């Protein structure tokens, strides 16, 4: 083809522009978190830690961070346990209504958060959990479990099915096989699932805003600042949260992509 090279370059430039669009708001937020002006604009003011200081010295932020961490740790643990059970069931068993079973497990991400938020607000106040930190933990477990299941299922896919039967033939019980064969094999994906569901919980704001009551998590605090005036504090909190979640994601990816005996 004649113009092949120029078309390829055109496409790559286009791709670059799309990436600029996607990353522009993230970079903007980090840059302006260090900028002195009250209303973020150009030309930039001078470098400052002011917004971080302000966030650091605000007890409300610390309460929110504490809530976020408790919720993220609990929800990710629960979601990963449920996700593992579901992934293993899907890996090993065939049964009637299995499609319905999987649909039930994987459906939550397809329901808009605002609808889940209203539904959970109503349900939690009906069963008397409204406004408690449990409400938030339960909600984020529902959101995280499908992701945990998907990640662990992918890992189990790489396991030889005969490995399990081999262990049984050698006299191990099902429980012992689970403990000594399957869980060790799935461990990297279990750690990935923990990190990713933690990140999901750390970022979720719609349900948290509806059900958390006084136990505000970090994104809810951001949402409330956003409802006020333009406040560069958001950039500082945002960059801080970004640093935490990115660390979690990178750890998750490391565990997902190493430990593969054969190269893909």
């Amino acid at each position, binding site marked *: 083809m004649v113009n092949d090279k120029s078309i390829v370059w055109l496409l790559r430039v286009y791709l670059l522009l799309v990436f600029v669009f996607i990353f522009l708001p993230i970079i903007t937020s980090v840059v302006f978190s260090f900028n002195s002006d009250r209303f973020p604009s150009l030309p930039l003011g001078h470098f400052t830690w002011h917004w971080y200081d302000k966030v650091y010295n605000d007890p409300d932020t610390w309460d929110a961070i504490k809530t976020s961490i408790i919720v993220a740790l609990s929800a990710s643990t629960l979601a990963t346990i449920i996700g593992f059970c579901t992934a293993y069931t899907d890996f090993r068993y065939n049964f009637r209504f299995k499609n319905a079973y999987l649909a039930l497990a994987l459906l939550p991400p397809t329901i808009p958060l605002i609808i889940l938020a*209203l539904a959970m607000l109503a349900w*939690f106040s009906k069963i008397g959990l409204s406004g408690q930190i449990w409400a938030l933990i339960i909600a984020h477990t529902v959101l995280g479990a499908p992701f945990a299941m998907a990640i662990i299922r992918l890992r189990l896919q790489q396991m030889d099915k005969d490995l399990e039967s081999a262990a049984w033939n050698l006299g191990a019980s099902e429980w012992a096989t689970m403990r000594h064969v399957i869980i060790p094999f799935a461990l990297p994906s279990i750690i990935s699932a923990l990190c990713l569901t933690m990140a999901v919980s750390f970022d979720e704001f719609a349900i948290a805003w509806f059900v958390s009551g006084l136990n505000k998590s970090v994104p809810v605090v951001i949402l409330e600042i956003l409802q006020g005036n333009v406040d560069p504090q958001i950039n500082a909190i945002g960059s801080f949260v970004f640093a935490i979640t990115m660390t979690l994601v990178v750890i998750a990816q490391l565990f997902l992509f190493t430990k593969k005996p054969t190269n893909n």
Partner: protein
Amino acid sequence: MIFSNWVKNIDVYALTWRLPVIVWQVLFFLAPLVFMIAMSFFLVKNYRMVEAFEFVNWIKVFSKGYFWSSYGLSLGLAALATIFATCIAFPASYCLAFKLSETARRWAIFFLIIPFFTSYLVRTFSWYVLLAESGVINNIISYVGIEPIKMLNTMFATMIGYLTLTLPLVIILQTLSMASIDKNLIEASHNLGAGRFRAIFSVIIPSARIGLIIGALFCFILSFGDFVSPYYLGGSNPPTLPILIIDTTKSGQQWPRAAVIATVMMVTLMLVALSAIKIAYKKR
């Protein structure tokens, strides 16, 4: 006798792994949704919800003109975002799938995952700062001598917000579906004399159909349910359905009416999803 046999036949091991998700999802995912639908028939008396089975809320909501205009607006905006996202993503995904090395593609996908873990609220705030009347973009173009353009509180800004939310996911889904196309198929079409565009329309798009449609579907679901962009960037005038839900729940104490709106949204999305899946998996 029968009972003890039945007990003996229970496979405790299998149930240990099977039951947790069923119990959890029924209690905390299905029950809230079912309860929400039931709530749409409840009554509100003296600011308190009374359990009942009346159609009052449905009639009230359906008789309001602003509900229908919000519904139309939400559908229109989500459809527009879906078209934009699909068309903008396609050349990028095409490039990722066919014109980059395996390593470069992996890195690109890693980078596309990053936005999922940065606060959507913070990114929206950044767009607010960028698009504002005295914001960064207007600042830059004023150097070139162009008058400030009103971008904030317009549908344009809402669309930017939707695309920020959906574009990475759409590109990932499109790229994965295109990368798994058998390269020989494309080669064959070239050998048969098909040019680049002919190959795209008669080989690549049909083969990647499922990924393209699922990507579009997720874009529709996410935009239809998002309240952040239309509220903070679009100025919420007129409001979309998610904004109506928040207003009705937060200020009005009218949970049952909010439940009506949410139920309408859910049914709409179900119909859209079912038709999308039907198109995606239809036999050619």
